[in-house]
């Protein structure tokens, strides 16, 4: 085995040039997933490109268009406390707070989690519910990919080997919305069996905004915008919710794994979604 080479570039362009020159090169953010895989000899990168001196990736910034731009290197612990994430957008800080444990939250970064894309990861579920965008720098310049198009299949994203995630952009929270992120795991700190993110707003008893994303139950987070839309204007009544949940179950494609069986996950989805919507409703009640 030839030993890897190590670089510490300072700009996005330098990182992209290094990635483009060698497709077995890997960037290192928090190292929480990459170094674990290296220790297990699941990957042997030819080059390690540390992102730690790339200034552009470190900040959280409110853009002029009202979107919140979270640099790829922002750690989970800082997303937990990001004051800019208000109302429904709190699903992102809630998700960050349920990742692993305090040590991993101090190390891991949002760009690393999104780039690695474990199908049981927490951020993708929240980002899908929020309609966030993944900002990417690549060999052909910069582009922006909506979360719904970014996560493609098991461990497959829209990233090319020479692409770098520069930031995650989160749209302004729907006015008056509340967010609930829930994760069911065998023990605290484990990867989830299933996750759900709900962003909801109501006018009186009627739903006037709804986004629901379900994770851990297929290759990518499940969202059904048409079915969400059909609930707008109605109340959160049991029959409509049951019909919605059935559609989510039909769209799911869970597998049997060490955490739970596929059949268990299908039973879980309706209850889990109903519980999260109930909690969102209760939260809206408290706020009003």
């Amino acid at each position, binding site marked *: 085995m030839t030993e890897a080479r190590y670089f510490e570039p300072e700009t996005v362009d330098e990182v992209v040039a290094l990635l483009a020159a060698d497709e077995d090169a890997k960037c290192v953010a928090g190292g929480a997933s990459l*170094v674990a895989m290296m220790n*297990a000899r699941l990957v042997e990168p030819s080059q390690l490109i540390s992102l730690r001196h790339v200034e552009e990736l470190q900040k959280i910034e409110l853009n002029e268009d009202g979107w919140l731009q979270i640099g790829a290197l922002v750690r989970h612990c800082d997303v937990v406390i990001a004051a800019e994430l208000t109302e429904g957008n709190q699903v992102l800080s809630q998700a960050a707070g349920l990742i692993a444990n305090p040590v991993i939250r101090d190390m891991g970064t949002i760009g690393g989690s999104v780039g690695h894309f474990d199908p049981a990861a927490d951020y993708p579920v929240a980002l899908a519910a929020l309609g966030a965008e993944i900002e990417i720098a690549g060999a052909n310049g910069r582009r922006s990919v909506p979360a719904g198009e970014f996560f493609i299949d098991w461990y497959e994203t829209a990233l090319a080997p020479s692409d770098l995630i520069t930031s995650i952009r989160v749209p302004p929270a729907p006015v008056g919305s509340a967010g609930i992120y829930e994760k069911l795991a065998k023990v605290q700190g484990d990867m989830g069996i299933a996750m759900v993110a709900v962003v909801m707003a109501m006018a009186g008893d009627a739903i006037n905004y709804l986004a629901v994303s379900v994770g851990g139950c297929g290759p990518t987070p499940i969202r059904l915008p048409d079915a969400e839309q059909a609930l707008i204007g109605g109340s959160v009544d049991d029959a409509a919710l049951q019909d919605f949940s059935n559609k989510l179950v039909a769209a799911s494609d869970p597998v049997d794994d060490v955490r739970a069986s596929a059949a268990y996950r299908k039973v879980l989805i309706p209850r889990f979604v109903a519980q999260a919507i109930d909690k969102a409703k209760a939260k809206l009640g408290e706020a009003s």
Partner: protein
Amino acid sequence: MSSSETIALKLNGEVREAAAGPTTTLLEVIRDQLGLTGAKKGCNQGVCGACTVLIDDKLARACLSLAVNSVGQDITTIEGLTENGEPSPLQQSFVDNGAVQCGFCTSGMIVSSHALLQANPQPSIDDVRDGLSGNVCRCSGYRKIIDAVRGVAGD
């Protein structure tokens, strides 16, 4: 850089030199080269917490940190938490509360507890459980570990 070269690490307030290649972990350097064996290699996967250290005052798994990527940062291991060579109140509390059985998890438990107490000097039982949720004790002495952490809280 490619193969092994000499790096300087800021470890427990001192500059220490070591040889590291791009894939050498911080845990390998501090244990195997610098002889600080408080941090343990349990899983080498980030799961058990036995290797937990502080890097720039944030918790980190030494087994998932590349040594070269830690140059210039302030690294604190369990050895660095002693006060003038004496056990800190937190360390002493682990002894007094019988929170150490085989001791394999203890360094990581204390480093994580130290960070918890910095942020939250009077943690509830649930706060301690949350704070130590990334540290596994195979001897399963959690109750006494929680007592030890709460034993120093706020005094």
